[in-house]
């Protein structure tokens, strides 16, 4: 039966010549897809007549990427992005599933708004899930109807953009959510400690004369939330962690057995606060870009398993909003189209010739000899976030089937695939982003590694780097 987001396409596809990578391992194999499902994964597959061939020589063929943190801006922010434009950006970045964040206008705090966004997702170029807000209007005052939203398949709840300031309310929210089997996700930012800071508090903020935000704005709320998890037993996910202290706290919490997960963004893995030295609001994000030692701690946190996933925090803003002075511009940068390449450069490659020069400008070079495997990288982008977001299992709802994200790549599985070419180099062109917005921090930057093809439930949505619709 066709699903609402992922209508299985009739026809056959052969992904030929690549290395198949998933949670179970890595092997040289071709992949045969028929009518939306994987039917064979074998060393060599004869191409049936009329089949579409996707060349994948030298590429990694993996389960489609899953972004558990995308701001698709619909409803209310269509000038910056729509579900459709955001999903196209996602498909070009290798994503087959996006979780739409609820800081829309109105917020996704009711079944009506959630249904609208899910309906928009039906024609999208990726499976669209939604996160509900924890509180009505993300105001931190009254709980959203989590039960009603959960019945629509909403698995993540967050007031992202705001931290939940009231600890008493967060306790009740966790207790209530636990009973529903859903996960609360926190944007850790204590408003009082953040004190209106626009960038990381440190040597650069002091020199530039920009109000700084202490790492404690994040860490104090994280500490409170970990205590609440300990009290309630409810699982919790931490969005876009940015500090060395946060990584250490999550490590200790996991060692203690607390049911917590954490994500980091590609930009916090690649860029430091030195990026802000030109006062360009393209580098203004929440939480702020931190020091190089924080960047190193986030990378180490992934490698050691403390951090579970990489999520984009894709945050489109109309160009004129980013042409304000730094203090006045909104926070956030695009991420979907560049995420895998940026993280690949930060985590898998060796430092290049321009590393020292890049570091001065705030581009933190990879550490020599510290490179992780592409399979590990894809785990942080695909099967791990799929599981946290509850998109791994295939669900048959009245409207059709959903989920089945994150692999493994084996016969019978839904054909959500991403093909990544690790040797391709490309220059990011802000004017050619599929997103409605242009606020990429990487414009003009030459990146290594590019998504070549994306297959959504058996439909080729990206072929040779071009969106097919």
């Amino acid at each position, binding site marked *: 039966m066709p699903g609402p987001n992922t209508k299985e396409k009739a026809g056959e596809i052969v992904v030929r010549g690549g290395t198949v990578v998933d949670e179970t391992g890595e092997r040289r194999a071709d992949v045969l897809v028929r009518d939306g499902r994987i039917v064979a994964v074998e060393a060599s597959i004869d191409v049936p007549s009329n089949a579409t061939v996707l060349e994948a020589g030298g590429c990694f063929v993996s389960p489609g990427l899953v972004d558990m943190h995308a701001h698709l801006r619909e409803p209310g922010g269509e000038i910056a992005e729509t579900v459709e434009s955001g999903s196209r950006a996602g498909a070009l970045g290798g994503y087959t599933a996006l979780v739409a964040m609820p800081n829309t206008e109105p917020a996704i705090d009711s079944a009506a708004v959630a249904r609208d966004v899910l309906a928009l997702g039906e024609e999208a170029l990726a499976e669209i899930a939604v996160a509900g807000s924890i509180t009505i209007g993300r105001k931190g005052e009254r709980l959203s109807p989590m039960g009603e939203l959960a019945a629509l398949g909403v698995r993540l709840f967050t007031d992202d953009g705001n931290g939940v300031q009231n600890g008493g309310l967060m306790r009740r929210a966790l207790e209530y959510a636990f009973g529903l089997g859903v996960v609360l996700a926190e944007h850790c930012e204590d408003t009082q400690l953040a*004190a209106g800071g626009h960038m990381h*508090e*440190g*040597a650069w*903020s*002091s*020199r*530039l*004369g*920009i*109000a*700084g935000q*202490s790492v404690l704005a994040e860490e104090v709320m994280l500490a409170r939330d970990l205590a609440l998890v300990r009290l309630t037993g409810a699982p919790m996910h931490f969005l876009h962690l940015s500090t060395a202290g946060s990584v250490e706290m999550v490590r200790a919490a996991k060692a203690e057995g607390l049911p917590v997960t954490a994500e980091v963004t590609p930009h916090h893995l690649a860029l430091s606060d030195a990026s802000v030295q*030109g*006062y*360009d609001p393209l580098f203004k994000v929440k939480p702020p870009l931190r020091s190089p030692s924080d960047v190193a701690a986030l990378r180490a946190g992934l490698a050691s398993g403390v951090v579970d996933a990489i999520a984009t925090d894709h945050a489109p803003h109309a160009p*004129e909003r980013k*042409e*304000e*002075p*730094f*203090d*006045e511009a909104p926070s956030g940068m695009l991420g979907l189209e560049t995420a895998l390449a940026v993280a690949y450069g930060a985590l898998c490659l060796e430092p290049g010739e321009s590393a020292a020069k890049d570091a001065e400008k705030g581009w933190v070079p990879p550490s020599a000899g510290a490179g992780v495997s592409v399979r590990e990288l894809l785990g942080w982008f695909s099967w791990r976030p799929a599981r946290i977001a509850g998109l791994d299992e295939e669900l048959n709802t009245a409207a059709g089937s959903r989920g089945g994200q994150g692999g493994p790549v084996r016969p019978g599985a839904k054909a959500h695939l991403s093909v990544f070419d690790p040797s391709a180099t490309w220059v990011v062109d802000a004017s050619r982003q599929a997103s409605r917005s242009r606020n990429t921090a990487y414009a003009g930057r030459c990146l290594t590694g590019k998504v070549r093809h994306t297959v959504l439930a058996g439909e080729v949505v990206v072929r040779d780097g071009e969106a097919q619709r």
Partner: protein
Amino acid sequence: MSIDELLEVRRAPAARHLLSINDLNREGILEIMRLSDAFAEVSERPIPKVPALRGRTVATVFMEPSTRTRLSFETAAKRLSADTMTFTAATSATVKGESLRDTVETIDAMGIDAMVIRHHASGAPLRVTDWIGASVINAGDGTHEHPTQALLDCYTILETLRSRRGGDEPHDLSGLRIAIVGDIKHSRVARSDVLAFAALGAEVVLVAPPTLMPASLEGWPVQAAGDFDAVLGELDVVYLLRIQAERLGEVLLPSLDEYHWRYGLTRARAAALKKDALIMHPGPMIRGVEISPDVADLPASLVTRQVRNGVLVRMAVLFHLLGSGEI
């Protein structure tokens, strides 16, 4: 040296903009000092005006109220025979709905050679250089820098020392110990003064309660002190910064009275200074907070001299960036 001689030897401007003291190296600062001397001579003529920038247009764009700095720049431009235009906005462009980019592009399109910009957000003048063709002069941006204030401060100290000693020396500030006292964290004057004083060889000590110090002084050519009284006796210049009442609301200070008690330049503290120490303030000065009313009027206070020199130094800056070398 007459202005005509000076202009003949004057090198071509290295930079088109003045956004930070870092845009001028030590030599650049000293050139501004020499040009200011020349314009001091001009200002004593019966008609204190030269045609150096005739036909040029200087726009002052003030997105934050500041009558004194704006008048100082406009006076400087007029004494160089430039045409001036003024754009002021009590509220930010955002509040009006127009972006900063649209605002400055509109003014640039009228045909200007320089834009003097004051903005409440740090870095705004730097952003503007990406959008317009005219030279951009930072007249104070947020809590970042106020380079022409620092230049006039350097000039005022040098001029005072020379008049006391009755000669052409000194040419720089080496050997001087200068304390900057007050809200360093939020002060664009302090950020520019630190760079300028240090470039001219002075030792700089920052004096403030911990809540008004920057979070990090990494890379700053300064020492820091929390106790004003401990450093008083060794200072050649005491540079006081304005304390704004809104810092109380941000819980950075218990009260203005307590600030005055711990960091104000009281008569007792003034008496503990070296006999020939200089007292400076960028204005507007709040008597009874950072300085006692009677101390403000002592001969050691250079506050009105700073204002006069502001015009000369801004003439020098405009000429440095726009002048063709001919009068």
